[in-house]
């Protein structure tokens, strides 16, 4: 036993020598901190980091960059908000600026937006709803990843169908594919707890004239007739045609990508990431994959833009002047164009000049750009408010749909419940 104890003591001592340096807290006194999203395009991330460090050098500060994943973003931000440890420069999602601006935690960035406008042209009007509050800009839109409709050209050719333009078309073609025995569950629209679920859910409702607010952002409730129509369309593939499998309701953000690329589904809503993945793996389905604008309904084509990243400067910052300067620099022409053109057509800008750049002049590029140009922010037809943010992030819309599909509730009941939930949110959360 004594030899063992001796050995143990040696090991503990060695550990101690290794551990002690790590126990000293990192001194962050002179550095600015930047939090950014970790994307699925490592090369683009590298360009962004290089840009940020160069900009920091130009401004004369040291920059510490930290990354977060999409799933953990709000966990980190929640802890930071409560503990007053927000970073100096924060990359926020579509609802972040609304939430933080309402708390009074964001610096006015109107001058930065003005400077960026000089470099990159005017900002898209539909981008303002998510970042402009009370006439002032509280964030600078960085890029959007729009949702488009992915479909299999070859399968559509096999059943003699045209690329679908309406929600109705998608259901019909899916039925044809299933009847022809090509796939069991070709309709890959997942009403799950991810962007692949709530983004199309909003587009669907809006394209049926079933928005839940008016132009000022005030709550009016989903109108009954239109809401029921939209619900019927959402649940048809699962309950009636059986062209969607219940498993899709449990999908994560990457499962629909993988299922599409495994050749198991014909349709799915997704960001352009599938194009990137197929290209980078020389996927055999590359030639058969095509995209289209998300479908329209009786009230038109009203696309949602839920995946948007914005730069903000929290007031917690010790040096807002330097932070704003770094953001300005990052969004100036040269660094931004370098980032955009290195993003494999995944990062779509919100400013006119890069948006109309020939870089997007490919068949798929045009569709992607068109989606951003047409897309509406969360909370349409009103601005993005913290209440609208909560409606989306608490999954009210997809829950409404799954209540009918999984719990077999009546559409009327589900609609009533959803309206009640939303009313409770709007009553409670201040609409600035």
């Amino acid at each position: 036993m004594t030899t063992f104890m001796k050995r143990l003591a040696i090991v503990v001592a060695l550990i101690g020598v290794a551990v002690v340096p790590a126990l000293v807290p990192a001194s962050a006194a002179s550095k600015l901190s930047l939090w950014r999203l970790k994307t699925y395009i490592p090369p683009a991330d590298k360009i962004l980091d290089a840009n940020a460090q160069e900009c920091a050098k130009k401004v004369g500060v040291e920059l510490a960059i930290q990354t977060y994943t999409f799933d953990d973003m709000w966990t980190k931000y929640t802890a930071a908000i409560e503990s007053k440890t927000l970073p100096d420069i924060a990359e926020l999602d579509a609802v972040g600026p609304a939430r933080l601006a309402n708390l009074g935690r964001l610096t006015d960035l109107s001058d930065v937006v003005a400077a960026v406008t000089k470099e990159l042209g005017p900002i898209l009007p539909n981008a303002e709803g998510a970042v402009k509050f009370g006439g002032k800009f509280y964030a600078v839109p960085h890029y959007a990843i729009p949702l488009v409709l992915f479909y299999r050209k070859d399968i559509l050719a096999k059943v003699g169908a045209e690329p679908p333009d309406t929600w109705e078309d998608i259901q019909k073609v899916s039925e044809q594919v299933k009847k022809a025995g090509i796939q069991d569950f070709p309709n890959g629209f997942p009403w799950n707890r991810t962007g692949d679920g709530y983004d199309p859910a909003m587009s669907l409702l809006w394209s049926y004239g079933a928005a839940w607010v008016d132009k000022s952002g005030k709550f009016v409730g989903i109108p009954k007739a239109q809401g029921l129509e939209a619900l019927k369309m959402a649940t048809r593939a699962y309950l009636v045609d059986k062209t969607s499998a219940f498993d899709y309701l449990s999908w994560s953000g990457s499962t629909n990508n993988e299922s599409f690329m495994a050749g198991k589904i014909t349709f799915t809503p997704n960001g352009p990431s599938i194009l990137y993945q197929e290209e980078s793996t020389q996927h055999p389905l590359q030639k058969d994959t095509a995209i289209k604008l998300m479908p329209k309904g009786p009230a038109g084509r009203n696309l949602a833009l839920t995946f948007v990243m914005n730069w903000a400067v929290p007031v917690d910052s010790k040096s807002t002047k330097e932070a704003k300067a770094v953001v300005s620099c990052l969004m100036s022409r040269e660094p931004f164009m370098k980032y955009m053109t290195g993003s494999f057509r995944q990062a779509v800008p919100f400013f006119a000049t890069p948006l109309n750049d020939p870089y997007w002049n490919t068949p798929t590029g045009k569709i992607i750009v068109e989606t951003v140009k047409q897309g509406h922010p969360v909370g349409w037809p009103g601005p993005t408010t913290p209440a609208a943010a909560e409606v989306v992030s608490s999954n009210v819309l997809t829950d409404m749909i799954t209540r009918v599909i999984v719990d077999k509730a009546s559409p009327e009941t589900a609609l009533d419940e959803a309206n009640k939930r939303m009313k409770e949110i709007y009553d409670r959360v201040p609409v600035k």
Partner: protein
Amino acid sequence: MLRQATLARCLVLALIMAIVFVPMYWIVVTSFKTGRQILLSQSVYVPRPFTIDNYVYLFEESRFALWIRNSAITATASTLLSLAIGTLGAYALTRLRFPGRRTFGGLVLITYLVPPGLMFIPLYQTFIRLGYTDSLGTLILAYPTFLVPFVTWLLMGFFRSIPRELEEAALVDGATRVQALVRVVLPLAAPGLLAAGLFCFTLSWNEFLYALIFIADDSLKTLPVGLSEFVVSDFAFWGQLMAAATLASLPVIVVYIYLHKYMVQGLTAGAVKG
């Protein structure tokens, strides 16, 4: 009679091994496939061609070695700290008589009434007030908050099953209480200590939330936080993830086997003799 029992035992073991084996096999096999093979579900059972690109990526592109080092430091230190505190507490609560020990024993478990998923913010604020965040030491202090109650109670269970007579014999021979603890009780409770230590280590090794929030510095990331970066919203880097999982698991197993041989068998044998 004996043969039946042995047969039953072998069957049970074989069944459990098979159930453990299948997902493990898939994990290891996937780690040797390229992204393309995984996406296309090619060569499902045996990767052809074999590639070690994922492992290379772990060490060249990602900071995997750093994550392992950070997790190893944090887990080992937390384990040792928790074992030390818990052993002393467990011994006192089972062997010594003092007023309030019953209530105290129960109170120790109160910490489990609130899930860590909600405690993380006030705990984070505590560390901010102490001016001690963004360091592995923060985690080493934070992890015992959920490890110590467990270690205490588990060891209480083991200590109880050791007959008092053995200690009393040592006391009669002139040993102090603490000497009796170290020379008599601990060796006999060695299997329990090892189990408790293993529990502490794996819980710390796998802990995600505190490591995500308390540490901002990229060079101090622990393994679970690093691994979570392989799952980006639209994409999962399966190959690298599985390679990381394989590499992260093996050392722990090896250490456990080694410790079991020397610590449990060695200590127990020593105790019986002397």
